[in-house]
């Protein structure tokens, strides 16, 4: 991939990802509402929300939170930019982990009990999904012989053919990463439950807007990884990838609306088990045939 292409991809990601992410979230809310028999907000509602948050008076428990959340957002953008520039996928996820640490700090620094418990649950979630994420990278490496996203995307065959187990494990942990029930222990997506709003309890105004925008960037990055399973050197595969992304997103919404929240230990056990059985077995097979 030429340097110009890389730059174009980075610019596209940085500029378009929040719009795409916000739009998808709008669809998400709409579809969820329909599933629950409600009319639901307009599709552009997430943008109205963020706009309003950005213009509100800044109220915070700790001044340092802004700094931490901005770092979180920038690292998140950096992760996605690296990914879409075709860089090393394992490195992307390492930086993503660093970003998540800053989110944890931003919640811990508030001294609110709700926020603190939410932050600690976030940590457990990180521990739950990280093996699956790293194993997915390993799967790409075995399948494509490289960690470079640009080279992985240019393979003659879609990688999902070699790594269905990894795909399943990755989609499984996407539920955690996208903060969907049954794994939304850290934020409790539905208002006024036991955690109020988990680690976002004390984030308000501009800070919450940063958090929201970072989430959009993150979702687009994660969906990009889903696309990487499908894309090959045939341009038509991009269409297939888009369809798979939409299907995955729909499945996540469906799971979100049909399941009750798990306890942290259930989540950890199930996630690690799925990771081991699905990604681990796939890994074993890939190693044996290569």
């Amino acid at each position, binding site marked *: 991939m030429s340097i110009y292409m890389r730059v174009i991809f980075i610019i596209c990601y940085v500029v378009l990802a929040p719009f795409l992410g916000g739009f998808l979230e709008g669809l998400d809310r709409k579809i969820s509402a329909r599933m629950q028999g409600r009319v639901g907000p307009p599709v552009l509602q997430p943008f109205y929300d963020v706009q309003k948050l950005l213009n509100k008076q800044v109220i915070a428990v700790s001044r340092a939170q802004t700094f931490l959340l901005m770092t979180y957002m920038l690292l998140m953008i*950096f992760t996605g930019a690296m990914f879409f520039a075709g860089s090393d996928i394992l490195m992307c996820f390492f*930086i993503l982990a660093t970003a998540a640490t800053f989110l944890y*700090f931003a919640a811990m620094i*508030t001294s609110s009990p709700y926020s603190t*418990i939410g932050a600690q649950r976030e940590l457990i979630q990180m521990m739950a999904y990280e093996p699956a994420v790293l194993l997915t990278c390993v799967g790409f*490496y075995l399948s494509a012989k490289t960690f470079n996203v640009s080279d992985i995307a240019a393979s003659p065959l879609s990688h999902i053919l070699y790594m269905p187990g990894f795909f399943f494990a990755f989609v499984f942990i996407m539920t955690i990463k996208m903060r969907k029930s049954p794994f939304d222990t850290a934020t409790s997506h539905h208002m006024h439950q036991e955690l109020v709003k988990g680690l976002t309890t004390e984030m308000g105004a501009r800070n919450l807007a940063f958090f929201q925008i970072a989430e959009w960037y993150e979702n687009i990055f994660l969906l990009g990884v889903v696309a990487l399973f499908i894309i090959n050197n045939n341009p038509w595969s991009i269409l297939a990838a888009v369809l798979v992304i939409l299907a995955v997103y729909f499945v996540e919404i469906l799971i979100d609306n049909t399941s009750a929240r798990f306890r942290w230990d259930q989540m950890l056990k199930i996630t690690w088990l799925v990771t081991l059985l699905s990604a681990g077995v796939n*890994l074993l097979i890939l190693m044996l045939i290569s």
Partner: protein
Amino acid sequence: MQVIPFLICFPLLCAVLMYCIRADKVRNVIAYAGAVIIIAATALLVMQWMMGGRQPMELYVHTEMVNHLILAGDFLLMIVVTFLCFRYKKYLICLLSIAPTILIAYVELAGPELKEIAHVRVDYLSILMCVIVGLIGSLIVVYAVGYMDGYHKHHTEFQDRRYYFFMILFLFLGAMFGFVVSNSLLWLIFFWETTSVCSFLLIGYTRETEAINNSFRALWMNLLGGCALSVGVTLYIYSKGQDSLQELIRYGKYLDERHVIAFAVALIAFAALTKAAQMPFSTWLMGAMVAPTPSSALLHSATMVKAGIYILFRLGPAMSEKASGNMIALIGGFTFFAASVMAIAQHDGKKVLAFSTISNLGLMVACAGVGRAETIWAGIFLMIFHAISKSLLFQDIGATENATHSREIESMHGLLYRVPKLAIFMFIGIVGMFLAPFGMLISKWSALRAAVDESNILLVVFIVFGSATTSFYWTKWLGKIISPTHNAVHTNVEDITQKSETLSLTIHAVLMIALCVLFPVLSVNYVEPLLIEQFNHSAEVIPTAVLYTLIVIILLVFLVPFLADRAFKNRRTNVKLAYMNGINVGNNTGFIDSFGEPKQLWMSNYYFTKYIGQKKLMFPCQLFTLAVLIVMMARILGGVF
């Protein structure tokens, strides 16, 4: 080339002085001077080696006298151990010292005529170890001067034997220098046993029952390793008629697994496992915590455990793609994962550090076991980062304990607001250890890739899961330091860190940051030549340009919000109380309970002691690794005979 004997003998001289001088002030001054001279001598050694074109220096071929002295030293160690074993009624342990000493004496006096070899060999790896020992070790001595002063003011129940403590510290440094420059395996055994005995004496410093029990546990485990080492060396000597470490590695590389050399290598690697506190031998390092903090810092960072890692890195090429390599990689990988899981359940800061040391050493051991240029690259960086970070963290915990009278992680709640200086040092130490873009991460990246290349599926799984658990225990600790609530009430903690401690901590922190930023330079100019020397080919793990861009960009990423924060400073932020369901008490440290009474808010971390406590997991893990060791050793032995 007199600087090498100087580096070994000068600490010995310091040790004698430490023991003889009982006036604290005078002894402290001499300890400072000794530390500075050791650093200077290390620098001189590095200079001389650089002037020689960085070629390996092979020295001291004819050493009749010294050989005899070292044999006498072996016996002296044996006598000391036997005496102490009898004094504390641990009779069986002394056999572990007597047997190898007699074996070695027999080999040396009645064994085959040994080929003439250079007894000392200084190459890239030795120089690196010398720098770690010389620099970090000396800084720990500097720190110890201040720390021990505070320690004995606090712990009046222990007899003040600082003269003895400093004697052992210096002895330790001397032995480590000897260990890393020895090419003669007979010399190496002597220095090996010296470090074992020194750590034993350090752990038992307070003479409490627990300390004595722990020190003897450390002793027998390390002496067991010493036995394996002696048997391995004996086999090698009888098979090849020489005791050069360099030649052993060459033989190990080219001879197949049916040769007796393969078993000798496996035995030496086994010995290294005990020293590097891998499972099932990790308990000695856990027990070592009863000693005053500088000794933990020394054992965990610059000396002792690094000796085991050093010998494994040396043997790496000889173990690669052999049964012994598989054994070492498996044990290391498993230890990396299991120890990091157990670290989650610890709430004593020093214990977390100890488990994290065992865990990180596990990763280094696994890297050595795989034995490819890439993994040794990763292992070397892990070792450097770990040495600085652990030394910094232990010293910092020691200072924190002196100030707050507790080393529980729970009591470090809001440390940033109570003892800011120490909290920042702690932050640097932890972050340098595991957060992107810093070295540990790159090492993990490289280790993972090499494990995949090797098709070592177990190692891949261990690294992947161990990496998740490692992040967990570090991050939750970091969160504790920055969260302000309940302890804000008793903020009046006096920071009684002495000047010498602060000096050492500052130098460590600066080193840590410099290393994080400059490690691509180190990689190109030092570690890659090191690999060429060991493997005849290097490993460009990540292109340097990429590394630099990564570092620069990430620094920018951190800089932008910082600047933005400065810019926003003047914008009014309305600071409110935290959400307590509307029942605040006027500040963030409490709430109104259901009886209408104010109650203090107390928040603690997750530890999961019930599920993954040390008591629950340690024994099964030890059993498993012991079984692996026995099966693999039997397999290697069966392949040979």
